[in-house]
């Protein structure tokens, strides 16, 4: 028996929405009983792509995060559902039973990820089935994974080391994360590169304004003064520290021979463009 999973690499997601459309193609107006009743013609996004824009000025970063049923270990939706209305198959796929779940609107609000949708006409909560009906018919992939142009979203058997999802999980070992782990539901969809806050800026020399200050050392420290990482400004005098903890306090040091060092305290409540940091000539 296979154990199915999905891996999503945000670094590779271009926000093309092919997954969103292919999912609709598979489910809108098509009954796939016993795993899914037809999706209504509008309003459902069994996989949606969230746009995350951060930064300001010219230090902007935009990421796309596909969000679908996380096929959790601990089912928040099941807690409000009648017996058997939602179940986890041996292969890990979580199914809302299209018959037994009738009328159970509470499941829509119970899901912390907001991926259960209400079908008004069918009086039914609905969501991603990992294309269970296709897998049961012998297909090797889900519609969303099939159409992903960059391999950002991969699917497969977690117990088969050669499957696309296992290969991605191995490649990204140590960098894997859950979407909103604080929900504590034990998702079986794995992410890598979820948007984090960054601190960016541009260094300038007070006495050489017509040149970019490239190759300048910039050091990031935590609030206690412990060095986290250091970098050199690029040819444009720009630097960026990525993957920081939201709301943490940081200190940025800029130093260059012949110039007075700069030190800035930054709270990363959101991604920060520190703007122009001018180093004064000694």
């Amino acid at each position: 028996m296979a154990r199915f999973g999905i891996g999503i690499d945000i670094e590779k997601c271009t926000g093309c929405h092919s997954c969103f459309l292919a999912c609709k193609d598979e489910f809108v107006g098509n009954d796939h009983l016993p795993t899914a009743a037809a999706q209504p013609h509008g309003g459902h996004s069994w996989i949606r792509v969230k746009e995350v824009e951060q930064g300001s000025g010219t230090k902007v970063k935009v990421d796309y995060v596909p969000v679908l049923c996380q096929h959790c270990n601990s089912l928040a939706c099941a807690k409000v559902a009648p017996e058997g209305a939602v179940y986890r198959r041996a292969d890990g796929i979580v199914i809302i039973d299209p018959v037994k779940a009738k009328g159970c609107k509470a499941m829509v609000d119970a899901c912390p990820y907001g991926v259960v949708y209400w079908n008004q006409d069918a009086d039914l909560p609905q969501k991603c089935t990992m294309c269970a009906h296709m897998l049961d018919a012998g297909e090797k992939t889900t519609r969303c994974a099939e159409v992903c142009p960059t391999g950002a979203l991969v699917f497969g058997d977690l117990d088969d080391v050669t499957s696309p999802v296992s290969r991605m999980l191995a490649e990204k070992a140590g960098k894997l994360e859950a979407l909103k782990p604080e929900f504590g539901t034990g998702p079986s969809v794995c992410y890598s590169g979820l948007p984090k806050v960054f601190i960016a800026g541009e260094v300038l020399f007070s006495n050489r304004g017509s040149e970019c200050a490239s190759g300048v050392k910039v050091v990031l420290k935590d609030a206690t003064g412990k060095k986290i990482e250091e970098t050199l400004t690029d040819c444009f005098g720009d630097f960026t520290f990525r993957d920081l903890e939201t709301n943490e306090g940081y200190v940025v040091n800029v130093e260059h021979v012949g110039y007075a060092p700069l030190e800035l305290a930054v709270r990363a409540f959101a991604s920060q463009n520190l703007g122009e940091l001018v180093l004064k000539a000694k």
Partner: protein
Amino acid sequence: MSNQEKMYFNMTNGGPISVYVKDGKVVRVRPLQVPESEYKPWTIEAGGKKYSPPKAVRLSPPVHAERNRLDSYNRILRPLKRVDFDPKGERNPQNRGKSGYVEISWDEALDIVSGEIKRLTDTYGGSSITGMTSSHHNWGVVGYKMGPFSRFMNMLNYTPVLDNTDSWEGWHWGATHTYGFYWRLGMPEQFDLLEDVLKNTEMVVFWSNDPDTTRGTYSGQESAIWRQWLKEKGIKTVFIDPFYNYTNAAMDGTWLPPRPGSDTALAMAIAYVWITEGIYDKEYVADKTQGFDEFKDYILGLSDNGRAKTPEWAAEESGIPARKIRALAREWASKRTSLSSGCRGGEGGACRTAYGTEWARMMVCLQAMQGLGKPGVSIWGATMGAPADSTTWFPAYAEPRGQMGKSGIAKNKLSLMNQTKQRLFRLTLPEAILNGKEDFLGDGFCGQSLEQQFKRNIYPMEGHSPVKMFYRYGGSFMGTMVDTNKWVKMYQSENLEFVVNQDCWFSSETKFADVILPACTNLERNDIGEWAACGGYTTNAHIGNNYRVIVRQQKAVEPLGESKSDYEIFTLLSDRLGMKELFTEGNSEDDWAKLFYESSDVAKTVSWDEFNQKGYHLVPVPDDYKSTPSLRWYAEGRDVDTPDTGNPKRGTDKAKELGTYSGKIEFASESLKKAFPDDTERSIVPSFHASWEGYDSELFKQYPLQLISPHPRFSFHTAYDNHTTWVDEIPLHRVEKNGYRWWPIRLNPADAKARNISNGDIVELYNDRGSVLGSAVVTERVQPGVIHSYASGAKYDPLVPGKPGSTDRGGCVTLLTPSRMLSKNVPGMAPNSCLVEIRKWGV
């Protein structure tokens, strides 16, 4: 899939598909489903790594909604007649766009259309009839726009409307005079540049280019993975664009946003740094170019009244600090850099601004200064240049051998037999109709010679009739041309005695017609087609795909409602005109498909029966494939060796030369010197001029925001927008509010705040030309002073139907863009030179 389902192959403008049908209904549409073993992927070795594409095809996003588009809420299902149109009585042209429609039978519709054709040709001759097709809504050789339409209309001796080069104006009218390639309409060859970039390039400068959105035109998302490879390889990327575009988001490069209209200044400042610091390829410039001294004088300010094109000067124009311009110039010169200036190398919004010719010419000049064609130094759109067999010929819709009116397979080459020499030009069609006269330069797509651009066409032409009937095939121009309220006025002109529109879907122009004919899509008829291969002036466009895929386009379902194929419609009309034999030559659509197939090189190895049975053919890359990177031959002084078959110097004693007069890259253009020696706008050496509608204009005081309206991301121009609810549900494509799906209008938080606009507000974008409503998207992705809202929406939904100038709530931002041409002698459109103001709607 279920064994009750049957799978059919077909082709779209964004890739090959498999269509699954159950009980006479399409139940799903997937990317081409063929056994993995049929894919023979190429491998490129670079930097110790091997790069190969996946064994699958990657469609353009909206194609995944093909099923939804097939039975769209906006399908035209029955012939329609405007309620107050009576061909024998009152025609009420002034009510076009206002009045409703009644369903009529095909018999009545065909009687009216053929009756009008007969009346007009008998009275005034064929030149009194004009007609024009839109692009991109279907695919196929037999049934698409240049097939039956062209064959039929030319049989009537109609007056064609010439296309303008809408997506690459500056390259067509400008770059051709710097490096030739007029046979590619100004865009450079792209062969084997993927390998060259992976192996040799150290930096890619994306300039006015968002390939993740424009996708090399027809190649779906095949190249998305290439750009991931570049990112993983750590190749530095810089994006020069007023919008933080989707490719920038995907590649996370450095963003340098110039003010719209300042790109030429920025380019000149880069040249200034290179010249003054001596960091350019002097040997190449000496051997491979001419006119550099004049160019240098202009850049350094030894001419042009002493105006030196310093980074400080360009900073004033562009808003990009001089230090950044200097740093970019130095980095560019110190690294092997590919310039990605438009999705096929030459395109991009900057070429659709005032004086956009000069920007495109500067792009070529810059790369010439760095040794264009040397390893790693290219003009590459980042969407084409995969290894491919380009020797196996297969017909494509835009090339003569792929058109049933021109191909050798036709006994009657009707498209070549048109006696009417009169021409109209799309950009000035409304003026020509409204004023009854018009003259214009060039022949639209001037692919035959540089001089073709200088020809003056006069309408009406002596001995010809002014046009009185418009046969419109498709209806996209309200959303893709400029200043499109004038199209409303044109349609309401009594000079147009009869307007017919033939389309599969209601589009923005459809309801200006007197009679509407329902056409079926290519999922409802048989055809043949090759992926991405448009032919014509883009030879071997399949190099934007990872595989060459040829498909027997198979009818999956019966035509919806009473819709019919183009071929059937034109056959029925021909029959009523007593020209059926002439038109069909006794051929059915399948006969034509077979004839076309058998004229191809593929038929030499795969018989029609075999192909017809199997439904597809993948043309493999030969085992002994030899890479011929674009323009390497020129840089190395060899005969052209790329498969750029349109190059007229191939195989001649001038095969080492480019297509300019001198055969070299011309910093000072010989062709412009000859044709327009006194033109100061598209001058002999590229020149910078403040936009006639930009940040320096008088109008800026009244309308202080610059609108850019690039090609859209989630539709193919108008195709797929407003025709599928699924695409319209993508929140980045349309934004729902109060039960209506609004077009996104992006603006900077500072501009929003100054006008008390919040994200999601319904806002009015307006100027003296028009007023358009949309949903405000407040974002850092545009700089202060810039508004970004895509062109090419399919929806024109005026609050007062039929009233020119009415506020539109469909998102048709082309109502706002100017009619004025790029410059005095350059009849290209400049939608990105557009000043507007924005305010909250209903406050």
